[in-house]
């Protein structure tokens, strides 16, 4: 077949796909770039002039940002360091802790978003398609939604030993009903569509029906919802750590750095300011990215909000 036959005729441009439009949206570009920078920062943390984020240095406690201090390396030699963001009350370098802190925040954000979307999708598809299950499942979801999300996460945390996995699970549970509702509403509207009715009439097996006709309709809204869940998960993780009930205190996370800085805040606000800025900028970027994706990928939802 000639190559020219499949290409569009000259002078007629095809309408841009949703993905192409998303990539041109200023919110998606700016938010995406900032998120990418934070991801790279977390991945490349050892290469960014950091020292061991947990190394304690009693001789250099509570140094203000920019102060110099000497530290002993593992090999025993003394080197001079500049504490860009200062040190905390145990002499740990806030700059290193903040850079490494990106790892936990991003891990929690991505893990919570993927888990709650996957679980919510499965429950939502089933609830939307099987009438007899729908009532039961939705009553349970209504009940879960009646418990304020942070409170439910706090209660879940109290059940298991402190750790990253516990925190992830604790944030996933309150997010699930919100995803289920979204998926169910999409399923309910899609099953009225003529092409689904046609497929039903033709005797398409339910599994194939869900996979081929219903699932594709959920992808765009779920990407948008997942982005917002990611932002909210990063926020809730920081809150839990800040309250002292999240990730164990020795792990460098933005919430933990701030929690440790509380006692000396009035004298040394740098403990709170630097991780606070990183945290706020990251969440802001993810939210802006989510807004942009919603406007381009899911215009119906954009109209609703």
């Amino acid at each position, binding site marked *: 077949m000639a190559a020219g036959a499949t290409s569009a005729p000259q002078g007629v441009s095809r309408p841009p796909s949703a993905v192409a439009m998303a990539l041109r949206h200023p919110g998606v570009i700016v938010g995406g770039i900032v998120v990418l920078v934070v991801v790279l920062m977390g991945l490349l943390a050892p290469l960014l002039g950091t020292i061991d984020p947990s190394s304690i240095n009693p001789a250099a406690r509570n140094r203000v940002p920019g102060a110099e201090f000497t530290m002993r390396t593992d090999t025993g030699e003394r080197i001079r360091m500049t504490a860009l963001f200062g040190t905390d009350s145990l002499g740990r370098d806030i700059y290193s802790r903040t850079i490494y802190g990106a790892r936990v925040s991003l891990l929690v954000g991505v893990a919570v978003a993927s888990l709650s979307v996957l679980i919510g999708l499965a429950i939502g598809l089933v609830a939307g398609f099987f009438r007899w299950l729908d009532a039961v499942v939705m*009553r*349970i979801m*209504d*009940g*879960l939604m*009646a*418990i*304020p*999300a*942070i*409170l*439910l996460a*706090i*209660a*879940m*945390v*109290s*059940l298991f030993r402190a750790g990253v996995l516990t925190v992830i699970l604790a944030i996933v549970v309150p997010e699930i009903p919100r995803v289920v509702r979204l998926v169910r509403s999409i399923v309910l509207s899609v099953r009225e569509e003529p092409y689904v009715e046609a497929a039903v009439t033709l005797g398409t097996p339910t599994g194939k029906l869900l996979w081929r006709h219903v699932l594709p309709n959920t992808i765009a809204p779920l990407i948008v919802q997942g982005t917002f869940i990611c*932002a909210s998960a990063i*926020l809730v993780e*920081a*809150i839990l750590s*800040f*309250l*002292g*009930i999240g990730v164990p205190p020795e792990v460098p996370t933005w919430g933990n750095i*701030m929690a440790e800085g509380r006692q000396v*805040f*009035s004298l040394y*606000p740098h403990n*709170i*300011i630097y991780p*606070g800025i990183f*945290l*706020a900028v990251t*969440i*802001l970027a993810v*939210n*802006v990215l989510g*807004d942009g994706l919603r406007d381009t990928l899911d215009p119906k939802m954009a109209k609703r*909000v």
Partner: protein
Amino acid sequence: MTLFGYILRRLIGTIPVMLVVAVFIFLMLRLTPSDPAAIIAGDNANAEQVAKIRQQLGLDQPMLTQFFIWFGKVLTGDFGESFFFKKTVAALIAERIEPTLSLSLFTIVLAVLIAVPLGVLAAHRQGTWVDRLVMGFAVLGFSVPAFVIGYIFIYVFAIWLNWLPVQGYQRISEGLGGWALRLVLPALTLSVIYVALIARMTRTSVLEVLSEDYVRTARAKGQVERKVMFRHALRNAAVPIVTVIGLGVALLIGGVVVTESLYTIPGLGRLTVDAVLARDYPTIQAVILLFSFVYVMINLAVDLIYTLLDPRIRY
């Protein structure tokens, strides 16, 4: 159907929701690996003493029986005894309720007073820098955690300018001035996310109303713009705004936990964190059940209020 019948039906409608909440909270804390009887008995107790306490608590009964015993007690306000604070959970909650109620009401009033005019302004100046500023603030309010905002406020108003006291709570009975003064910073902190939420919804729903024919008619007959905004637009945009105020109570409750810890206010939020730290399960159960109940009831009240206010909504 009569109005009374409608209210009754809606009230009954909340029962299954609360029942699910109760079952969930009960199961969640009953399925923990830790044994409440062992916690109460303390480290020095022998197996016999633990078994006796287990019997006293009814923990040797089947799960379903346990649930009904527990639920029956909860309905009478008996949440059991706190493992950690060594008094009844009901008494504990009673002494912690005033600070939380004060902070929440103060915050709601403050947030509505700030957010609604901001949202109306943004809608009125749609597309201008005013609109972008308000919407930018709304996105920012959703992204900056309450405790970061709180520390900024503490640094600026309490440490730097030295205008306001930093921490603590003063009961209303000890003087209204000190009570209000100590609540200003916590309420401001807590209101940021709430303002962001309400301002956004106000803008959206006012914009929607502004495109209606009756607004064009009002403008065409030469109605003053201020009256158009407040009499025609805002009044008809009220339903979604009031709804979001109700839904936002969930955010508010989450924020109360953070804010009370930040400003060392001895309320229910602080109690929740302390109870989790101490693995004090009866207290955790009671606080979550109480907050969820309040949340459900507020949203029911919101629904009922605008059914009464808005003649277009049929019950």
